[in-house]
């Protein structure tokens, strides 16, 4: 009873949030909403959804944004960062102070924090870096070292470069056009930063190809990655089944997991990055998929099928196994 009450307390809420400010931040916009109930429940890595377009809107899908920061002023404010991509975000950019928005949050699984002080590397691509600064605050409260590695196409699209330089033990910036920091991708600098910072754990948020690369490179050093994915969502609360990607569970079975409620933060090596956008043939419920008991008996006959591979990827949570998805094509043959 106590437990369920606590869960309810921690769950998301749907509220009317009043716009406090909308401001340009380089290539992006940052909006601050007064939403005390969401601010009170927030943990870094979580996100909000917003209804866009007003009561007679033709835009039926909510827009999801990771929370950049919460502050205690006005009872509790929530800030998020967005780029104008289409009609919905253009409408948002046109909001002004005192406008009221329908907002739901905080949603999703937050970044887990290390129990003991650790050297943490926070990697952000574009405005994917937005949730990393609140995370950095929490990490420092736990006596963790925080290093930043941020990148984008150009300098004006590296969100929070200044804050990273001011607050991080180190801050490495990369841009594809070389207009800020070193020219290239964050993954070009990853080896060097990991060595210099003696990284114990990586937190990453950004485009899928970046997350895939970061997970693969970190796997070489056995460094666990907590990756916040950016998958297209329709509802953000777990009912529409739009935002799924193949994720290996602690039981070794791949499921099409919802990034909005099972994520957006996943352990990097649990996501089958190469299979995103597909239904892997061995995913739970895939065409031709069979219940585990039957598969297990088959795998004995075959001398080691997917169930045997699954057994090796079980509850050994401390170890990273980035080769897991690479090993997959061997299943059944």
């Amino acid at each position, binding site marked *: 009873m106590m437990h369920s009450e606590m869960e309810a307390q921690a*769950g998301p809420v749907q509220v009317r949030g009043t716009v406090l400010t909308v401001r340009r931040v380089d290539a992006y916009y940052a909006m601050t909403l007064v939403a005390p109930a969401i601010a009170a429940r927030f943990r870094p890595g979580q996100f909000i959804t917003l209804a866009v377009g007003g009561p007679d809107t033709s835009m*039926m899908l909510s827009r999801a944004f990771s929370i950049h920061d919460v502050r205690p002023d006005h009872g509790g404010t929530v800030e998020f960062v967005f780029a104008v991509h289409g009609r919905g975000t253009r409408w948002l950019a046109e909001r002004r102070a005192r406008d009221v928005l329908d907002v739901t949050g905080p949603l999703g699984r937050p970044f887990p924090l290390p129990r003991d002080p650790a050297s943490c590397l926070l990697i952000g691509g574009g405005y994917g870096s937005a949730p990393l600064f609140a995370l950095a605050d929490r990490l420092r409260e736990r006596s963790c070292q925080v290093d930043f590695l941020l990148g984008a196409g150009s300098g004006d699209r590296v969100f929070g470069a200044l804050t990273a330089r001011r607050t991080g033990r180190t801050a490495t910036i990369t841009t594809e056009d070389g207009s800020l920091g070193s020219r290239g991708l964050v993954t070009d600098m990853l080896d060097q930063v990991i060595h210099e910072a003696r990284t114990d754990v990586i937190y990453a948020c950004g485009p899928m190809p970046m997350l895939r690369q970061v997970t693969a490179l970190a796997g070489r050093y056995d460094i666990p990655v907590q990756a916040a994915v950016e998958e297209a969502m329709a509802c953000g609360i777990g*009912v529409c089944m*739009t935002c799924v990607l193949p994720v290996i569970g602690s039981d070794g079975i791949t499921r*099409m997991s919802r990034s909005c*409620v099972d994520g957006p933060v996943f352990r990097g090596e649990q996501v089958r990055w190469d299979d995103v956008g597909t239904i892997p043939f061995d995913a739970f419920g895939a065409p031709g998929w069979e219940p585990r008991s039957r598969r297990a008996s088959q795998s004995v006959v075959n001398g080691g099928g997917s169930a045997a591979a699954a057994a090796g990827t079980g509850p050994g949570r401390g170890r990273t196994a980035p080769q897991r998805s690479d090993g997959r094509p061997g299943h059944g043959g």
Partner: protein
Amino acid sequence: MGVDLRTRLGHVELPNPILTASGCAGAGRELAQFMDVSKIGAIVTKSVMLAPRSGRPTPRMAETPSGMLNSIGLQGPGIDAFLQRDLPWLLSRGARAVVSIAGGTVAEYADLAGRLSEAAGVTAIEVNISCPNVEHRGQVFACDPAASGAVVEAVRSRARYDIPVFAKLSPDVTDIVGIAKACVSAGADGLSMINTLLGMVIDTATTRPQLAGLTGGLSGPAIRPVAVRCIWQVREALPNVPIIGMGGVRTGLDALELILAGASMVSVGTTIFHDPSACTRILRELEEELTGRGTERLADVVGLAHQARTIAGRPPGPGAAARRS
């Protein structure tokens, strides 16, 4: 003082007519964070199948003017997980459970009805017949009167006698009344309409279809006039068959429109995606709307659009006068 909102799902009485639409509310658990799931008429679950199913690849969704396309492919954990986990949860919350079922063969539908009948607490079964018939070159059951009737007959015969069976009709047919009659002849206690319309979006930047599944089901306010037309036609032909109306409802007035066309219950779907507490809001708005018109009972306005008189003594509009003359 309050409007009597009670309505009938077959012989089962519901406290009010607002339901969730299948596939837009999971099995109620997620929505319970934002509203009391026992306060609305019923939760209509996402379609349950016999076996677990992974669904289609992503992208699965595209926003369209006043609507969206979805191509989920009925992802779900299967009937065993539903009976173990979801149904008991719904009942523990005091919610009424209308269970949507989907299959690839008539036998699968029948087995699902049997499994649900063994469990306690199923309020009704909604049969999602908009599925490809694997025994008939993948033709969708809902597009053929005989196939629709065969599914409904099998479900009705296997479902416990006291569980109403509703058939959910597709608007993507030439003659929806023909399908409706076939379902009712086969034993359907009521009809749900409408399912999504098949649509497609091409991304002009990539020059490719936007959905991985190429086509998807169109839902949202864009299809509401289609829903109103289908409900109207079926109500006209089968005035005594209860109808669960759905299709782009986002306000209490929208719900009233479907009720006037002939629905005695209304499901809310796509609107939930931007307003997770939409069902309770729409219920409140509907009640206010009826109160404002001096309506005492919901039942008094079901199908009212088919009658010559108008609500609460409002003068007939010019259209009505023209029709009479």
